[in-house]
């Protein structure tokens, strides 16, 4: 079975929510829409306090004066109502992010010209890209890279292969799985639209072997459409971009490079679905599927939820149990622990994980067991990195290729000494960047 070297096998816990059909959560009384839900230039609000907005209306756009505005994605109102505030609010990605707060009037009134159904066959590549960009679609697996940028490679980097990342290798999460089960045809359509926009020769779907029912559905849906559906071994991080590419094509994305460098673009399941909604149905990205799961909730579920809905609303719908100690945006391996439940669902929120048992916080000296090395999918030496970071030895850290770390968390998961390796690496990356900036400043002056 196709896979990549090393990696780990954490318990999946997908059984908690995998059989829960996608359930639409009623729009909340108030949505909070951060202006930065993606990588790249943050949006500038295009509405002000007191404005009336309608569903699907643009409320944030990159500043037209910014030369890098292409790498950004607009934000749309996810409900109709009145803007009650444009102010910094807490977001799952940052303690404080400029946000547009809309009070829901319950009318569900669409903005003018939305949704605008189109027959995709009438669109060319540029037309598809324009629609994707206008719909504000970003990578919905968590990274949040604007999709229209991803499918607009520079001319010197020809793309021959498109991969749909259906691995969903994060434990617990089932939102992609449910989309595949319930909307295989729509997914395939979204994928074909992306393929058309890119003009690729080959289109692949990579799916882990723990979702064989979804595999069958996707295979049936994609029959005769030039799509190859491949089963990958169940292993974390099978869905990491570079690892999935290697598993399916044996191509190695160069260190520090992008999939573009080997002629490949990878798109996530939820993104492909959003592309289909944007291009055919003409709907901007205002809702997504998010899994609420973990041993801290009474009723795990997969919710179709409006962007900007507070975590609290999802958690109330699922019922948080006593003793919940951790609330995580995303999965357990790469998700971000939240200090508050009053943060909104954003484009990259694939799930909310509620855990009762907090992972061990005490760590010991490295015993050189090599488990981190044996698990690191990037071929790094996390043991050395952790020792250098613990000692705050920037010179050594600079020699250990930590820029190639994808923070998948395999090393820290495997560590018997419970060393917080990912934490140290994140700190190390920031510290090295600070030092570099300082050196450049000194050189300049």
């Amino acid at each position: 079975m196709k896979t990549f070297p090393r990696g780990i096998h954490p318990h999946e816990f997908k059984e908690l929510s995998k059989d829960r059909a996608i359930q639409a959560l009623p729009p909340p009384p108030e949505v909070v829409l951060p202006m930065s839900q993606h990588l790249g230039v943050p949006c500038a609000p295009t509405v002000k306090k007191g404005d009336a907005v309608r569903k699907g209306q643009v409320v944030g756009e990159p500043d037209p004066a910014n030369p890098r505005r292409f790498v950004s994605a607009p934000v749309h109102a996810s409900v109709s109502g009145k803007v009650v505030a444009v102010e910094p609010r807490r977001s799952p990605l940052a303690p404080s992010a400029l946000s547009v707060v809309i009070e829901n009037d319950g009318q569900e009134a669409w903005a003018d010209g939305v949704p605008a159904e189109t027959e995709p066959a009438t669109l060319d590549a540029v037309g598809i890209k324009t629609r994707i960009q206008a719909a504000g679609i970003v990578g919905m697996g968590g990274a949040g890279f604007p999709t229209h940028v991803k499918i607009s490679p520079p001319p010197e980097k020809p793309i021959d292969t498109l991969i749909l990342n259906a691995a969903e290798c994060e434990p617990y999460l089932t939102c992609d799985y449910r989309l595949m089960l319930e909307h295989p045809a729509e997914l395939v359509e979204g994928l074909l639209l992306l393929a058309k926009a890119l003009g690729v020769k080959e289109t692949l779907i990579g799916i882990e072997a723990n979702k064989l029912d979804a595999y069958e559905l996707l295979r049936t849906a994609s029959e005769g459409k030039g799509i190859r559906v491949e089963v990958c071994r169940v292993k974390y991080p099978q869905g990491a971009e570079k690892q999935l590419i290697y598993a399916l094509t044996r191509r190695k994305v160069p260190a520090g490079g992008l999939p573009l460098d080997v002629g490949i673009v990878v798109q996530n399941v939820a993104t492909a679905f959003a592309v289909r909604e944007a291009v055919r149905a003409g709907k901007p990205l205002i809702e997504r599927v998010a899994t609420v799961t973990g041993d801290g909730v009474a009723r795990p579920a997969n919710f179709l939820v409006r962007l900007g809905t507070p975590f609290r609303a999802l958690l109330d719908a699922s019922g948080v149990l006593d003793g919940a100690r951790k609330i995580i945006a995303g999965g357990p391996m790469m998700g971000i622990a939240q200090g508050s439940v009053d943060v909104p669902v954003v484009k990259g929120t694939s799930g909310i994980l509620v855990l009762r048992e907090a992972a061990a916080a005490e760590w010991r000296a490295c015993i050189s067991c090599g488990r981190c090395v044996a698990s690191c999918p990037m071929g790094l030496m996390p043991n050395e990195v952790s020792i250098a970071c613990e000692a705050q030895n920037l010179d050594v850290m600079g020699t250990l290729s930590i820029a190639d770390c994808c923070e998948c968390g395999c090393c820290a998961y495997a560590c018997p000494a419970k060393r917080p390796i990912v934490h140290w690496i994140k700190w190390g990356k920031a510290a090295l960047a600070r030092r570099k900036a300082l050196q450049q400043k000194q050189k300049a002056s």
Partner: protein
Amino acid sequence: MPDEEAKPAAAEPTEEAAPAAPPLLVTTSPHVLSAENIPRIMWTVSATLMPAFAWAVYAFGPRALLTTGIAVASAVATEAIWQKLRGRPVTVSDGSAFLSGLLVAFVFPSHAPWYVPLTASIFAMAIVKQLFGGLGCNVWNPALMGRAFVLACGTWGMAANAFWPTAFGYLKPARDKAAAATAQEVDATTGATPLSKLKDGLRDFKGEVAKQAREFKDGRRKTVLAPHNAREAREALREFREAHGTPLDDLYFGRTGGCIGEVNACFLFLGGIVLVFLNYIKWQVPVLFIGTVALLSWMLPVNVPGVNAAGDATSYALWFAGEPLAEVFAGGLFLGAFYMATDMVTSPVTTKGQAVFAIGCALFTVLIRRYGGYPEGVCYAILLMNTATPIINRYTRMKVFGQREKK
């Protein structure tokens, strides 16, 4: 550099407590960790040594229990006292001091004087382990260093050889007639270990040949009873082995003299298999270590004393004349290959590095056994390779995914 950022986010209470009563924990990912931890590793490894230990108690009697008890107790006590004095958290419950103490006992004969395991354990824990920073920071395997230290203590009137032979009174060797005979009279007889019997025997043989050659030259003797060519040397070696060797099954099942933990290759092998399946050790290490010892001891020349045509004492180097199986099952090789060379702290990190390490251990083991001053070389071979671990680590790093070769 801001200090607080380096501190891993353990419990960072947040201002909001809802919806659960205690504040939410905010830490860096990953939020789930494997069930593996240091105490589990140490206690499991200790548990897999129990069959070999039980055999030692059966074979050598309660004295083995006492020697082991002294070694374990003094190892645990030394670590606890050291940590207490240094004001560090006392971590003896993690099992690493217990395991070190157990392994110290395993590398001494059961009838070693009480102060021998005591000294070895204290040295191993205080000097070799704690002085270097405790678990994870030691350069050498503490148990083997403890052994090396005691062997070096010549001033105590304890010649190195005195530690090789061991009492073997409780279980009568099946085919060792001499030992069986004496065992009738005394409860515990001392006898040489299989390896020292061969080594000492060969040395005596060499002395005898030299003596005869001298006498032949002086005209006191008409013939020299020694091999005159390689063919005769080979024949002599075979006869020598028949006289001095130990049957393979006795070696494998531990019906022989030796240190507490090393005699029963079979039980050590079974324990090692468990460790391989638990992923605590990599199979490459014991396989390469033992395999290379077998290969090299078969291949490398055995120097058989003899005389040349002129009647001068010489030696015939017989290539490919070794006895790989006997070499493999004898001595501390199985203990070393499964439990010492696989010590996480003191061996390289990557599988490639561990392979280099294991082959190096094997090379030094065979060189010391065959050409060195000691009958057994596993201990020093592993300690030598422990010293080489940092440099092996440096040259056997993983290749970063997608990184191009350096131009």
